[in-house]
């Protein structure tokens, strides 16, 4: 117990922000409760009514109220998964705001940091408390939520988001935790750069938002793709659950042509296919098995960025304190 107890500057930081920490803890518990309850409830109802003649999702007024009830449970589950995915995606932005503003820049703005630095707490120790401690706590909390999200995806009924969807991919793997760590590092850097609460929050929030908006556009290129071509006009070469990066038609010489070559403004598709010697459609895609390599490569990149931002923040601190 004593080994775990916080001491010195760590205890001070936790004590100062106890209100925020309690709020975060309550929100965490509520989120976990929702992620447990809703999938179980929806799965249970879907199972109960699977054998009935009433369709589950299409309530047209001809079935009983139960249909409507199931429909809303199914809907609640899907909405929860969609919204929770987006919430997990945006979580790093909220963390960046907190670390940059109340945790670091406010102390620099109000001057309370000087008081800490004279109380046998070195500047580096002071910043470590304000970066490593939140990184550990927020990272662990996010990892728990991601674990719950993965479980809820598995436990609920019906359609789940595609594994590669922008709001699903970071909510199901280590990438989500890496973004939280990056947010903390960017927040520290922003706070030390401007040393004012609200501008630091603005800059940290914007920087984190830009990173989580840009990365999905690069994601597809982070691991080699698979190429496959079908040998008849209607055979789609990529299987189900694949993330298609590029598609088109390929002719007998192996040349890739645009997929809509024979679609635009034409009704006789077959004649067009024969005329252009098309042997079938092709697709360039990621298989579902590329999920882990993609996750790990992106995690590595984000962690490298984190290290850069953290190093810059500590350098800046050394200059400030010197």
């Amino acid at each position, binding site marked *: 117990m004593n080994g775990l107890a916080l001491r010195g500057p760590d205890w001070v930081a936790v004590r100062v922000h106890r209100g925020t920490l309690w709020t975060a803890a309550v929100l965490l518990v509520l989120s976990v409760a929702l992620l447990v309850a809703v999938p179980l409830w929806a799965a249970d109802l879907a199972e109960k009514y699977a054998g009935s003649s009433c369709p589950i*999702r*299409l*309530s*047209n*007024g001809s079935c009983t109220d139960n249909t*409507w009830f199931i*429909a*809303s449970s*199914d*809907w609640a589950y*899907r909405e929860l998964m969609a919204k929770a995915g987006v919430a997990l995606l945006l979580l790093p932005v909220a963390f960046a705001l907190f670390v940059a*503003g*109340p945790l670091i820049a*406010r102390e620099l703005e109000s001057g309370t940091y000087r008081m800490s630095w004279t109380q046998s707490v070195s500047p580096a120790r002071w910043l470590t408390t304000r970066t490593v401690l939140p990184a550990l706590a927020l990272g662990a909390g996010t990892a728990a939520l991601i674990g719950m999200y993965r479980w809820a995806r598995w436990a609920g009924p019906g359609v789940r988001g595609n594994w590669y969807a922008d709001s699903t991919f970071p909510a199901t793997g280590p990438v989500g935790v890496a973004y939280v760590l990056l947010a903390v590092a960017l927040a520290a850097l922003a706070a030390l750069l401007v040393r*004012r*609460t*609200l*501008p630091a*929050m603005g800059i940290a929030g914007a920087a984190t938002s830009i990173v989580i908006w840009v990365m999905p556009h690069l994601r597809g290129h982070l691991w080699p793709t698979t190429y496959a071509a079908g040998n008849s006009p209607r055979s789609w070469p990529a299987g189900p659950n694949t993330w298609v990066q590029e*598609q088109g038609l390929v002719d007998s010489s192996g040349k890739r042509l645009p*997929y*809509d070559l024979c*679609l*635009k*403004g034409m*009704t006789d598709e077959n004649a067009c296919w024969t005329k252009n010697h098309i042997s079938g459609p092709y697709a360039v895609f990621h298989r579902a098995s590329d999920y882990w390599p993609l996750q790990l490569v992106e995690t590595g990149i984000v962690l490298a960025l984190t290290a850069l931002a953290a190093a810059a923040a500590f350098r800046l601190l050394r200059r400030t304190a010197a």
Partner: protein
Amino acid sequence: MSTSTSPHPAPAPAPAKTAKTSRLRPSGQLWTVLRLHRTALWVWVAFVVISIGVLLWVRYGSTGVDAAATLAGCGTAGHRACDEWMWSDTALVTTRDRLLEIGQVLRNLAPVVAAWAGAALIGRELENGTAELAWTQSVSPARWLATKLAVPAAFLTVGAGVLVASYRMLLDWSVTHHMLRAGYEKYTLYFNIGPATVAYTLLGLAVGALAALLLRRAVPALVAGAAAAWLLTVAIAPWRGSLWPVGAVGDSSLWHLPGSDSCGGGIYNHNLIDSVDPCISAQPADHYLPVQLVETGIVLALAAVLVLISFRVLHRRNA
């Protein structure tokens, strides 16, 4: 806080010197607000300009032109049906995704505005005491708050108004070219952006101001204002479908798309399968204006009530 932003009262002789050269320059309290919040002002102007640039790019960029070309003549003799393209054409899917994303941004302005108003506009001045300083400089608290709300309200109304008008033009273009899926997207896109979007940004301003006056601290007001504005937006949205009577069964104007079967009190469409019940809240496209105006009225009334409460709170604190 740098020295240039602190509201120092100008030394007495200075105004006489500059009076001639600055007829266009706003004076007193108005100038203070503009000067103090010039960063926010420029961020807002940049946001509006960049957004309009993005809207133009969506329409005139290669993808948008491609999507329009794909659908040219669809539904007429010798061409495919318009809805055959809905899922297959990459340019079309991309254009539609961009429309949805920009709409998402426009619909979520209120929490951002509330965060700014709660923290930077009002909360910070109450926290560090510069508000009290202003009140001793022959600016009454009520006048102070009125200017603080009126100036950003003017900028928000003009900026959001221009954005909404541009977005509606883009949306009209996409409807003319049959780019929207029936039902679901008309519900999220078509009915979502309009005069009410402008009203929501003003609601965000009112919510942020009230949060700041109640909490009198910048960061808590930022969090509370943003959360309250977001909750209000979320709470109002589901009622949008009930703001105006739904269309009659079999009304051919509903959703304007082939392949719709009638159901319940409205029209069922296959493309609505992702929502809970394709039949609820079915509103034909020509209900757009009544629905928008009713919603605008409700949101503005709510904002007015919040502003009134803000003045009340301010009055109590200073009585």
